[in-house]
């Protein structure tokens, strides 16, 4: 019951057509969605723009969200669709952005760490999008495979294998660093 409480609150706000639902959605999804979108787009600015599009789209089609069987999967699907739309509309530009724009941050002001993060970012950018999504959600949002499977509407085994293959590729790409 406790697990479903945020769901129920959000659904109730959507049904009441209360604008407070926007705040609830922000609290519930903004952090994870921004991370997820950065994992897809490898760009913070693009991720922020798409996040705005996602929220506007949800506000416009709120009645559908209220009726969705799984809120999380529905919201993440919208986010992925919007990100894919942006990627296809700016395919050439996107390749340049992967190399120039940093979306992973370092806490300390350390040149060595900055270089490392730069390499991590490039390595992550070379992974297939689906593997990158899983790795980023697991590492940077501390999600379990079960949670990720619920968010992405996939089976737990699929999520685990995507993670495993992704880590394998990262191991090859970052071989000299480990």
């Amino acid at each position, binding site marked *: 019951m406790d697990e479903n409480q945020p769901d129920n609150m959000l659904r109730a706000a959507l049904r009441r*057509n209360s604008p407070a639902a926007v705040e609830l959605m922000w609290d519930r999804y903004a952090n994870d969605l921004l991370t997820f979108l950065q994992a897809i787009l490898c760009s*913070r600015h693009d991720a922020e723009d798409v996040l705005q599009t996602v929220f*506007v789209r949800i506000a416009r089609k709120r009645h559908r969200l209220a009726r969705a069987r799984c809120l999380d999967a529905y919201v993440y699907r919208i986010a992925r669709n919007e990100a894919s739309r942006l990627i296809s509309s700016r395919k050439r530009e996107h390749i340049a952005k992967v190399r120039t724009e940093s979306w992973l941050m*370092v806490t300390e002001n350390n040149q060595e760490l900055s270089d*490392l993060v730069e390499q991590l970012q490039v390595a992550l950018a070379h992974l297939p999008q689906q593997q990158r999504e899983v790795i980023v959600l697991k590492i*940077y949002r501390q999600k379990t495979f079960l949670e990720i499977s619920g968010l992405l509407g996939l089976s737990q085994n699929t999520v685990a294998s995507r993670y495993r293959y992704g880590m394998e590729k990262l191991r090859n790409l970052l071989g000299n660093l480990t």
Partner: protein
Amino acid sequence: MNEKDLENDKIEHLLRRAHIPEPSPLLKERITTEARKEWNQTSVEMSWQIPLMRLVASAAAAVFIISIANFSSNHTLKKWRPGDVRATREQLPDLETLPEMPYHPFVRHLVSVNRRPSMTDASSLRNYAERVRRILKETQQNGASNEQVPDGGRSRLLPIQLSPDSYS
């Protein structure tokens, strides 16, 4: 723990040295404002209105399709309207052009192919009727010329009754 797991742990450790920043309050303000604006602009669509709207749209589409079909049918039938019926009736022997066949020539051909067995029956029946009529006519003519015949008016088709017991 095997070697792969150890290496995965190392990579995870490396990845965790970086982080992805949370959305700034400025971004929150910008996005929630836009979303609220959209919320207020969009009309309230109650859940029951959606299936109703779909139903109305389906009904409108159905009416449109039926009207188009009616119009097309009327247009096709124009050349088969009553004016031609008499002429068609007069040409009865040609069963390919029956009045109830207002179709495309190909469809008409198919229909006539399907009707062929009954057509054969009709023509043979007609021939038979024609033959009977001719015989009757001849008989009548013969009857008129041989009025003095005692058992007059008997048809050639019927056997002559020699005695009342003949049919017993």
